Structure formats: C-alpha cells, structure tokens
C-alpha cells in the first residue's frame, strides 16, 4: 500500500496538470507520467503482465504516437486561456464535481467483502493463466481484436495517404522559378547559408552571419524560429574581429589565376 500512497498523489497532480497545462507537449508528458504510475500500480496489484504491456504499448507506443503527431500538428498552437463557449467552464466544473461525488457514493457501496487476492495463480504464473483465458473463453474476442488491428492499420494508411494531383516540380522548373524571383523580387537565387557560417558557433540554432555582421534569420530551421529558439550569440566578438582586420590594414594579395570578371 505504500506504493499506492506515494503514487496516487503523483498521478492526481499529473492528471490535473494534463488538463490544465497551456502547452500540448506538457500535457503529453503529464499523461506519460500517469501511465507509468499506473503501470507501477498494476505491478502492485499482482498484474505483472499488464505492468509490462502498459509500459511497452501504452507509454512506449501510444504516447510516442501522440508526441509525433503533436510535433507535426499542434506544437505551435497553445490554447488561449479565454473560453469561447459561455458558461462551459462553470458547467464543466459543476458537472465534474457532481460526477465525482456520485461516483464516490457509488464506490463506497461497491466493495463490502474482503479482497480475495490472486494467490491461486502463483503456481503457473500470471502469464500462463492469462493465456489460458485469452485462448480459451475469450478466443473469439481475441480474434476480433486482431482483425480490428489490421483494419486500424489499413485505415491509417488510407487516411494518411496524400493524393498527388500535381506533378512534382523538376529541377529545371525550380531553378527557373528561383531566377524569376530574383528578377522580380530581388530574392537571392543561391543557397541560403547554413547555420553558423562566419559565426563563432556552428550550432543548429545559431544563425549565419553576412559579411557585414548582420545575422541571416532564414539560415535557422523554421521550426526553431517559430519557437523563438534561434539565438544570435556573441555578435560583439565578430565586431572585434572585424575591427582587428581593418586596423591591421592587410592589403589584399592578388591570387594567381584570378581574372577580371
């Protein structure tokens, strides 16, 4: 029971964090915490198989799936605090509290006998007896859930499929477009500099510097930019280097083979 009394508050706090967190990623992490605690509670209740399955399937696969989709879809959107439906929060709070109260009353009536315990399954182990049940009385349900999994895979493929309606642009087309943009908008037709060029650090989040020292924002990945995680570091060092060079007054040496343009 000690496990329970340690884990239960953690789970509750995490659950509350799940529903009240502003950023979706924080909610996902809270859910992961809840699931792991649940797995430990399963272990405490003589369900070792479920303990393992909970961690591998639920926390390991399902939560990861959630996080992937979050990154694809919802990482930028954070729920605004203002509620758009009038009275929804108040009604939700009231109904939620009432619901919890009713369930509490029901629960208080539910259990009146002593706990029987799963002692009789110690002989062959939990997995053995679970298998007995699964491939015995519950074989039909087992087969149906298997079919369900296959259907789910197919469904996911169908839903995620993107019909290509327009031919992908060829290299020629892309290059022509770049030249047109340069002609019309003055957009630089070449590659954008990679992060860290001329900068003192070449970390992924450090923008490249132009010859005069201004940082090129486009050199950092868009997702980092969106999260304002691009950082211009130590620009004053660059200014010192430029001043040194100018002060040194080094003459440009003519390199051989350099022709006039």
């Amino acid at each position, binding site marked *: 029971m000690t496990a329970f009394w340690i884990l239960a508050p953690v789970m509750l706090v995490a659950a509350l964090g799940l529903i009240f967190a502003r950023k979706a990623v924080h909610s996902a992490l809270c859910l992961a915490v809840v699931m792991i605690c649940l797995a430990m509670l399963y272990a405490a209740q003589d369900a070792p198989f479920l303990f393992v399955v909970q961690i591998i399937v639920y926390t390991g696969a399902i939560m990861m799936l959630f996080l992937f989709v979050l990154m694809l879809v919802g990482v930028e959107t954070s729920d605004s605090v203002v509620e758009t*439906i009038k009275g929804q929060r108040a009604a939700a709070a009231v*109904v939620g509290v*009432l*619901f919890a109260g*009713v369930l509490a*009353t029901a629960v208080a009536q539910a259990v009146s006998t002593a706990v029987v315990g799963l002692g009789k399954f110690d002989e062959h182990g939990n997995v053995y007896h679970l298998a007995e049940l699964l491939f015995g009385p519950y074989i039909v349900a087992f087969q149906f859930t298997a079919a369900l999994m296959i259907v789910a895979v197919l469904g996911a493929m169908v839903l995620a499929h993107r019909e290509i309606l327009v031919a992908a642009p060829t290299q020629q087309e892309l290059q022509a477009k770049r030249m047109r943009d340069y002609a019309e908008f003055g957009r630089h037709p070449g590659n954008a500099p990679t992060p860290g060029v001329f900068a003192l650090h070449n970390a992924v989040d450090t923008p490249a510097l132009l010859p005069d020292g201004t940082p090129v924002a486009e050199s950092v990945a868009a997702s980092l930019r969106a999260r304002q995680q691009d950082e211009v570091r130590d620009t004053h060092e660059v200014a010192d280097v430029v001043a040194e060079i100018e002060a040194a007054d080094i003459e440009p040496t003519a390199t051989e083979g350099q022709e006039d343009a």
Partner: protein
Amino acid sequence: MLDQSWLLIAIPLAGAALLLMWGKESDKFGHLIATACSTASFVFGLIMFIQLAGRDPADRSVTANLGTWIQAGTFSVDFQFTFDTLSSLFVLLITGVGTLIHIYSIGYMADDERRRRFFAYLNLFIAAMLTLVLAGDYLVLFLGWEGVGLASYLLIGFWQHKPSAAAAAKKAFVLNRVGDLGMALAIMTMFAWFGTTSIAAVNEQIHSVSGNVATALGLLLLLGACGKSAQVPLQAWLLDAMEGPTPVSALIHAATMVTAGVYLVVRSHDIFDASPTARNFVIAVGLVTLLVGAWIGCAKDDIKKVLAGSTMSQIGYMMLAAGLGPAGYAFAIFHLLTHGFFKANMFLGAGSVMHGMNDDVDMRHYGALRTAMPVTFYTFGIGYLAILGFPGTSGFFSKDKIIETALATNIWVGIGALIGAGVTAFYMTRLMLMTFFGQKRWQKDVHPHESGLTMTIPLMVLAALSAFAGVISLGNWIEDWLEPATGHLEHVEPPLPMLAITLIVLVVVSAGVALAWFIYGRGNEIATEAPADDQVSVFTRAGRAEMYGNQINEALVVRPTTYLTRALVWADAKLVDGLVTGTADRIGELSGELRKPQTGFVRSYALMVLGGALVVLLALLAVTLA
C-alpha cells in the same frame, strides 16, 4: 272574375319583368307597356269591385288559393289572396292612382334616358303593393311588404349618380328593416302561439289566448307599421326619400306604401280589439307623429319636404283613428283614401311646379306662379282645400270624422288632433302663398310654363277626386262597406253635438289660415334666402332639424353600433387572429429557444453527454439505495 285576384298582381309583375329583361330595345315603348299593364290591373280591379258590390254583404270575401308555398311539418303557408271589401278599396286606390301617376310620369320623365327602368320599377311596386293588400296570409303579406320596400329603395335611389339619393335610399331601407324586424317577430309569435300565419285563422284564434299575447302581437305589428308608414320613432327616412323623382314621392310616399302600416293595423283589427294596451300605444304613436309632422312642415322651405311632413302628419291621423278601435277603423281607411287623392294631387302639382322652375324645390324662389301655371294652380288649390277640410271637399268629411271620434274617446287626444288641424292649415297656407301668390322671386333663366297634357290630365282627375270623393261617406256607405272586414262600427257619442264640433274645427282651421296669411300674405316680403339658423326661433330650428330625429338615431343607434362593430373588428384582429398567429409566434419563439442547445460545438455536446451520464448514475444510485 272574383277568384282571379292573382291576375291583378301578375300583370304588373310581368310588365316589370318584361321591361327589365327586354333591355334597351324597349326604351322607345317601355313606358307605354307599363302604363298599359297598370291600366289593365285597374280595369280588372274595377270589374271585381263591381262584382263584389253585387254580392250579399255577408258574402263579400273571396279567397283564391294558388297552392301551397311552404310545407314544413305541421306548418303550412298557402298563396292565399283574399279579395274582400277592405282590399277592394285598396286595389282601386293603388291601381287607380298608380295608373294616373304612370301617365304623369310619361311626361315628367320624358328627358330621362333610364325611363324604361323607372317604369319597370313602378310596375314592380304596384305588383308588390297589391300582393300586400290581397294577401290572405301574414307571410304572403310580408312578401309584399318586403317587395314594396325593395321598390321604394330602387325608386328613391333612381338617380344613382347622386350620392344624396343613394344615401336616402339606404336610409329608408335600413329604417324599414327595423320595422320589418317587428313584423317578422310578430309572424314568429303567431306561429309559436297559433301554429299558423293565416290572417283569418289568427284573427279567429286571438280571442282564445291571453291578453298579453294580443298586446305583444299588437306592439310588434305596430313597430312594423311605424317603419313602413314613417311614424315616430322610425320617421327619419321619409323626408330624405324626397330625393326620388316626384312621381315616386306621389305614389309611394303619399298615397300607397306609407299607408301599408295603417292597412296592417286595420287588417289585424282583431288583435288590436283584444288588447287595449296596444291600441293606446297606437293612439300615442299617431298623436305624436301627427304633431311632429305638422311641426316639421312649418319650418321647411323645400316644397316636397313640406308635403312629406304633411304626409307624416296625415298618416298620424290615420293611425290615431285606427287606434281608436272599432269606432275608428272605417274612418282611418276613409281618410286614407281621401288623403291618397289629395296628397297625390299636390305632389304631382309640386312636380309640375318644379318642372316649370328648372327642378328647383326651394319655395323661396317661387312666387306668383298662379298666372304662369294656371291649371297646376287650380288643381293644387283643390287639393289644398281638401287637406284643410274645407266644407264639401273629401278631406272635410274624413278629417272631421276622425276628430269627432277622437274627442269622443279622450278629450286630450281630440284636442291634440284639433291643434294638428290648425297647424296643418297654417303650413299648407304658407306653402300656397309662397308658391302661387306674392311677388316673383324667380331666379335667373327661369321661365315657368304650364306642363303638358300627360301631366295636367292626371292632375285634373285627382283634383276632381279630391273634391268629390267625400260622397262615399254619405249615408254611412263607407262604414257599411267596410263592416265585413273591420267589424261593426261602434258609434261613440261625442261630448258636443256634431255641428258644434264641425264649427270649432272650422274656426281652428281659419285661425291657422289667417295666421299664415298674416305672416306670408298681404304683400309681405319673403326673403329669397332662408334666414340663418341663429336668426330663427328655437322652434323653427327644431323643425328644420326634423325634430332632431337624425341626431337621436345617430346617438342612440348608429354610434353604439359603430363602436360595437369596431370592438368586434378589434377583437377579431387582436384576439382571434392574435390567438392564431400568436400561437404560431409562440411556437416559433419556442423553437428558437430550443434551437439554442444546438451550438455545433463538440464540447457542448460532450457536456450534455456527461450530464446525461450523471443523471443515469443518480437514478441507478437512487434505485440501489432505496
């Protein structure tokens, strides 16, 4: 011949139908057809009268039954026509005066392009009035009653383009309707009490029921009579009815239709005999109307309206006489006949005067017409003498008898009748002086001339009748003739000897004449424009306003009814429609409210799902805990 009394009705009716359906083609000769039909009716009527006279007095009632009209269970009404002594006199009056007026109208309406239709309506009127007097059943009488109302409406509003004529026709019809309501209720009461509406049966059975039934019937019949005969309180339409052409005023509103009420009372004499209360009401109505009509006649400058007021007053005399009971029925009919002659005479004379004065009716624009229109003057003069009761004229005999009987029954009623005679003398003399004597007050471009023969010959015939029709009262002929129909005449002893009463009447009449001569004769100036209302006495003002009859009707009936209809319209729009559209609106609002949960937001629906789950859990909990 006597059992072909239906012929009298059928011929003018056919004439009317023929003229109305033949259409414009018959415009050239339609009036001749109509006059021929009317003459034919008169000839047949005369033949039937002579045949009836040749019969024994006990035998002088011939009923012709044309078949069953209504058969409903135990109630049946036959098309019964009774030609007896009373109806024979009316037949002669209606067809005789009617034919003379037809002839007069040929000349009078010569310039009117709708003349054929006018004659069709005249024939229709004759047919309806004959149905009324020949009916042997109250329902058939009512048929004729309504028919004359219709003809009156059509004829008053004959000049449809004049809004005043249309309004007058409507007013006459509506006021008559009120009277018709009384008549209809009387017929229903008869049916309820006697199970039949046959005149003979009702008059027989009335003596076996209580006096209250007779009183009720009498009062209801009196109401009907008031409507048709323009007695107070339903008198307001008669003066407005002068909007119609003058032959109409002469025939309908002087000689015949307005006397239908008196006919009804006399025909139902058994009912009135059985109810002294009803008789008293009749006397009261007659007396009041007689004085009111005379009052109005004094204050009007329109020659036709003076004559209309005079008609109202004279019919009051007839009603008075009819209300006096068995002592007076015969005299009422006698006066009715003589009045028919001299009033029609005077109306046609007035029409002749108007014809010569470019249809101007204002007596203030007349004056000194006796040299310009001599025949009209002399015939009109004879009528004037008759209405005065100049000794020897027909009016002398008829009116004197009424005053005598009135004095004998009740001294105050008699004095009222006497005063009425004096006032009659006053306003009739005023009319004569203003029209035929004095200075010329003619307007510009007015050249009075005598009318043509078609107009003057009827005038002469009627003048002769006005002068000499008094002979029928000699030797009590009229009373004996009418006895089978009206019951035995009770002779009542007047308080003074007959000669004394006659002299008193003559004195009162002379006083009236003298007063009028004093004010309007002797070469006095008569203003061409009537003095304004604030310059005349309150009595004149009352007379000009027709004793405020219109205002009383307006206040007592028209306005409350208007408010009632407005209230009903409001109730219909707001309450009834409001209920219907209101229900629709409420349902719309309800659905608008019910629409609100459909926010389209998934989270609201999720909230409802959770709420529902909560309710189910609560229910389960309640069940297990209980």
